[in-house]
């Protein structure tokens, strides 16, 4: 089975290693949905063996760890409930993880397998730097600071109580440049009233030096501070700071939670690097991005879009053109389709390119900002006709139902029906009048519309089903550019006794939207489908998670197109 290569099943100390025996022993109590909430330390060094603690609930019956590569091997060292006697006890699983020296650094999801089923995943970070754990004892003051002996290393720590700040001590030479990064070990949580996520533990980093304050000779003086410069829903809030030390001497680093939280789950790692290093990029999305400013608009996009619509390659060539800046005698004339690109280097600059429309046509305009995205670079795109009249912009406008106030939001894509032949000008500028820079680079694709399936969202992470139990998976997808064909959803690799059905689910009626302008130009039509997974009464229990594959394909002209979205979902059939 493919699952065997995917899953490392290991024995638990003191418990028989046969999975079924362990299950039988552990299922006398009512089944609780197992979940994991934190890992400490969550960063592991290549070629080393490390002991980690996984905290969560419903983990008493853990008997295996599920890792995506054979380069990681886990062995359970024990399970305990901490602290005993409180209302919501937390289970702690001690795992010994061995990382192969050849394993590539990166993020690897860890799940635990228990008698109640498989858990959610939390990432393990593998690094080629030495990883040092916080020594026992308090380190919440300069005189108890943890020494930074190695300047290229990862220091794993935890803020065990509210208001705790961990101090590190290092020596630096005048002019020395170092980069520090604090990464939170806690996943983001859902934002109230929103589909977006917000940080649960937002680390903050401060560099301090000896102060010589008149009031307190031991006071430390802040020389640098980082909290991420932007707070944007869904964006990571880890701290990153590159600093050039002015003086040779002793410095301290202070790591704390932005909002002063703390507890056994508040694990972090502090990465210390010599020299200047950019922040670790956020994990790249693995699914299709239709409307992100950071998606890559390659010349091959037309082919990709056609495939997502179940259509053959249109065979169109998209050439690149440089837009003319403010003050240029004439802006370039471009064909359709075309890629227009440029850099808003000076505040207030407007770039332009012209095209001739011979006959009515529906076009799409897509915007990419490869280096700086909103809210830092906010590309405002307008399409104006020969008389200077604005035909379209990438600002979606609304009008508050109560106050009548205008609300506008910047979009990375818009579709425009052009009915009047003639010359049109594409204008690009930064939304604000004051900001510009060499990294205010944009790429805009101007192209005919290609009906296709846009973003697909599958809301399941893992499944634990008992016999006679059924659960749903919601699959929603966007119909882009007037895609009017069908969409096929299939489930593969179901274990015996588990079946998949098409179904329906109740969808809460949203509040009536505020008066909105030409919404259809900016937002796709979204549909939702429901897949029901059901375990028969005689479904066989699964000792290990089975990897379901949920596949989405366009259905065009009576033919199934290629797979455009795919998700693997661990599933276990467990005792009721």
């Amino acid at each position: 089975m493919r699952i065997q290569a995917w899953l490392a099943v290991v024995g638990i100390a003191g418990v028989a290693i046969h999975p079924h025996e362990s299950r039988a022993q552990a299922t006398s109590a009512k089944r609780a949905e197992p979940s994991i909430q934190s890992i400490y330390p969550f960063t592991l060094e290549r070629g080393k063996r490390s002991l980690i603690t996984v905290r969560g609930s419903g983990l008493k019956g853990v008997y295996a760890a599920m890792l995506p590569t054979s380069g990681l091997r886990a062995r359970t060292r024990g399970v305990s409930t901490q602290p005993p006697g409180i209302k919501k006890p937390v289970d702690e699983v001690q795992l010994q993880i061995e990382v192969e020296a050849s394993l590539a650094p990166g993020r690897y999801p860890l799940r635990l397998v228990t008698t109640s089923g498989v858990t959610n995943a939390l990432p393990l970070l593998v690094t080629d730097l030495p990883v040092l754990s916080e020594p026992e004892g308090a380190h919440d003051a300069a005189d108890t600071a943890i020494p930074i002996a190695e300047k290229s290393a990862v220091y794993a720590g935890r803020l065990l109580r509210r208001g705790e700040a961990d101090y590190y001590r290092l020596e630096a030479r005048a002019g020395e440049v170092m980069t520090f990064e604090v990464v939170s070990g806690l996943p983001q949580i859902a934002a109230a009233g929103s589909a977006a996520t917000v940080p649960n533990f937002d680390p903050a980093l401060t560099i301090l030096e000896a102060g010589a304050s008149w009031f307190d000779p031991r006071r430390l003086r802040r020389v640098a501070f980082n909290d991420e410069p932007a707070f944007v829903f869904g964006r990571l809030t880890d701290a990153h700071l590159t600093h050039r030390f002015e003086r040779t001497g002793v410095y301290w680093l202070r790591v704390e939670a932005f909002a002063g939280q703390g507890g056994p789950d508040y694990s972090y790692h502090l990465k210390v690097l010599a020299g200047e290093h950019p922040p670790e990029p956020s994990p790249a999305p693995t699914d299709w991005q239709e409307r992100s400013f950071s998606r890559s608009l390659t010349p091959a996009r037309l082919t990709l879009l056609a495939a997502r619509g179940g259509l053959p390659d249109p065979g169109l060539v998209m050439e690149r053109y440089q837009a003319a800046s403010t003050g240029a005698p004439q802006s370039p004339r471009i064909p359709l389709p075309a890629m227009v690109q440029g850099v808003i280097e000076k505040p207030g600059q407007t770039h332009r390119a012209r095209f001739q429309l011979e006959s009515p046509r529906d076009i799409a305009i897509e915007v990419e900002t490869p280096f700086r995205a909103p809210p830092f670079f906010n590309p405002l795109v307008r399409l104006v006709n020969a008389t200077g009249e604005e035909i379209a912009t990438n600002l979606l406008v609304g009008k508050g139902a109560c106050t009548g106030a205008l609300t506008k939001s910047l979009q990375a894509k818009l579709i425009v029906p052009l009915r009047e032949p003639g010359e049109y000008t594409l204008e690009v500028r930064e939304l604000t009048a004051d900001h510009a820079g060499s990294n205010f680079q944009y790429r805009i694709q101007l192209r005919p519309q290609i009906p296709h399936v846009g973003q697909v969202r599958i809301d399941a992470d893992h499944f634990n089903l008992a016999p006679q139990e059924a659960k749903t998976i919601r699959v929603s997808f966007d119909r882009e550019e007037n895609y009017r064909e069908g969409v096929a959803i299939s489930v593969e690799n179901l274990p015996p006794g588990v079946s998949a059905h098409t179904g329906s689910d109740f969808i809460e009626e949203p509040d009536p939207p505020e008066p909105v302008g030409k919404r259809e130009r900016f937002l796709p039509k979204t549909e939702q489908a429901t897949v029901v997974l059901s375990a028969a009464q005689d479904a066989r229990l699964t000792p290990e998670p089975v990897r379901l594959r949920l596949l989405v394909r366009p259905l065009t002209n009576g033919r199934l197109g290629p797979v455009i979205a795919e998700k693997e979902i661990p599933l276990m059939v467990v005792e009721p």
Partner: protein
Amino acid sequence: MRMRLLLGLIAASLSAEAGAGEKLRILPERIVLQGARASQQLVALLVSADGSEREVTSETSWQLQQPNLVRWLAPARLGAAASGSTMLTATWRGQKAQVPVTIRLGGEGANPTFSREILRILTKRGCNTSACHGGVKGRGGFKLSASGLYPEEDYEWILQGGGYQVLTPEVKGERIPRVDLANPERSLLLTKPTLTVAHGGGKRLEPDSEDYRTMLAWVRAGAPFGDASRPAPAVMKLTFTPPLVVLPEGGERQLLVTAHFDNGQQEDFTHQVIYSPNDPDIVSVSPDGRIRAQSRGETAIVVRAAGWVGSVIAGVTGPRLPRYPHTPRANFIDQHVFSKLERFQILPSELSSDSEFLRRVCLDLTGALPPPERVREFLSSRDPNKREKLIDALIGSPEFVDYWTWRFADVFRVAIFTNGLSSKWSQSYWEWIRDWVEKDLPYDQVARERIASQGYEPASRHFLPYNQIGPPADVMAEEVRVFLGRRLDCAQCHNHPYENWSQDQFWGMAAFFSRLFRVGAVVFDHPTNMDLSTKDVGGSLELLHPRTKQPVKPVVFDRTPLAVTADGNPRRVLAEWMTRHPYFAEAAVNRIWGYFFGRGIVDPVDDFRSTNPPTHPELLAALAKDFADHGYRLRHLMRTIVRSRTYQLSYRPNETNRRDVWNYSRALARALDAEVLLDAVVDVTGIPETFATAVSEGASVGEAPRGTRAVQLRDPDTFYSRFLELYGRASRGAVPERNAKPNLSQALHILAGSTYVDRLQAPGSRLESLLRAGASDEKIVEEFYLAALARYPEPEERREVLELIAKRGNRQAALGEFVWALLSSREFAENH
């Protein structure tokens, strides 16, 4: 004339002889009467060698070389009669003084006009004050603009009648004219103020008065507005002679008021205005500008002319000191302050003691008490420059950065609900403040960054109260309050009732903020030459005047033309103008001054208006100039202030300054702000405060790191604190920034609250550590005096405290009670 001369001679014979070196002087020094209705009040002064003045107007005789050129309207008041030039001679007890007189007739019509004579009469008679028809809605169905700010509108209301409405230009009710051109004597404008018909405002005009005759003549002449070919000049400024009125108890002085018009002319307005002393218990003023001292003190006299409001400071002094001693001056601040004190015959207090200065300057510059070892060191030092060195050390300390970041977080309103409902955004805004405080960036740059901030800049977060772009009117009024020290809010709905601000000026300023928009986290100014889908929802980008409903263009309030481009940042242009305007530096130095003295030179510090004049206008101007000359650096300004002897005066009063609260003749005790007080309690007891992000328990509840001081907290809505709420920390949601009035809960908290009680003998506290180290009672008492009050106990205090401790029986309890008593004392809770 002969009679006048005779009376003058008699008066002169009754008065005191001229002192040695006294010279007779006439005011004004040059008289120009422009037009047949012009007049000039005269004043005769005896000026002594030391510059002091004594008015002898009523004892002076006046002679003109060409008497036919003028009319005598009163014993010391000239009126124009014929064009020409002559010399006026004043004689007092044989002394003579001369001034030239020029009379120019012509250029005005035979009949009075509304824009000139009638408006002045309405103003002088109090008809257009805010308490009467100049109120927001007018009175009795009759509306006039306050102080005749809008003559054309007033004229229309009088000639056409009708009810005024605040939010619309539509006329309410039937239009009944207030003048009757067919029967001028029956005009309501005349019958009401003479009480010929009922008038809620009482009798304002006698039927046989000159003003009545002028108004009647005006109606008879067809009630003209003015001469269309010669528009009436507008008042641009009022000046006063003397600019500062100083009177002994029981003294009198004639005030001269000169109006300066936009055509460059000047005119005596002494009899064309209405006088209102802010405190009539100190001075009274007759309708013709004669000021009479009532009791010792200082007050402003508000002077309202048609189209303008001004004010002058008047003070009543005690007996003249036989010999006013010289007080050393440390810098220009002292020159201004001490010179006024001398004029008011107030002696400044002595220089503060070292301990007094040490505690005061530490609290004022850093919000922190000096630790006992530093107090000992400072008090024992014989270095003559130790105060200057201390000032530099404090200004360079991290505590200074903490403290002034907190101060400006108040002023700039750092709080989650004012910064987009996001703690991250309030944090970035707070960090921006901390950064410029730490780097001592020029304050004009700070102002420009805040006013004009765009995009995702930290300062732009303040445009997002409750996660919305604030209304242009609110945003503008706040920027003007913070950076220009003016409160324009009243003018939002109507012309300002007490000021010269009009509703048009308000909305012209607000229009600079009308293009403020938000896209996600980004603040930007909507270009006016781009629709950007606005038409898609039938929206409009225009800011409409709330009353006229007409689109408003951005215009600064002095009408200076500013180049605002359609797609630029209009606030950047405004910010440049604001920071170059004289108001900017004055408002900034006044705010900072207020922190160090407990009151501003204009107080409240953000309420500059002509009816609330500065107590020391020359000092304010000098501070503002020095601030600008030194690159608008706040540290320089603060250093200048605290180095002055004025700042370093003792709080202990002398006989002459016991009642003085205006003139900085001594330090005034000021209650410590909530955060500073809490930090002081923590410093003295040695037990840090715990600041939690919520009262309830929960996974997301956080705490500030151990040892965090109250002034280091970012915003009041992140960290709950019962103590800080009780003692009035600023919510940062309203003006004034903090209002810490004493209340009963504070007293109860002192008696039983955890801040005062639980800390005293907690493990790790200062007291517990001293006891554990075996310190004697005397040592402990001394240590706490130094920690809490920055001084050694007086011998009597020491003796009494030690006796009480000995009598108590329980040493530990007695010492705890002693510390509690120290912390509960006014001396501890105040900066003095």
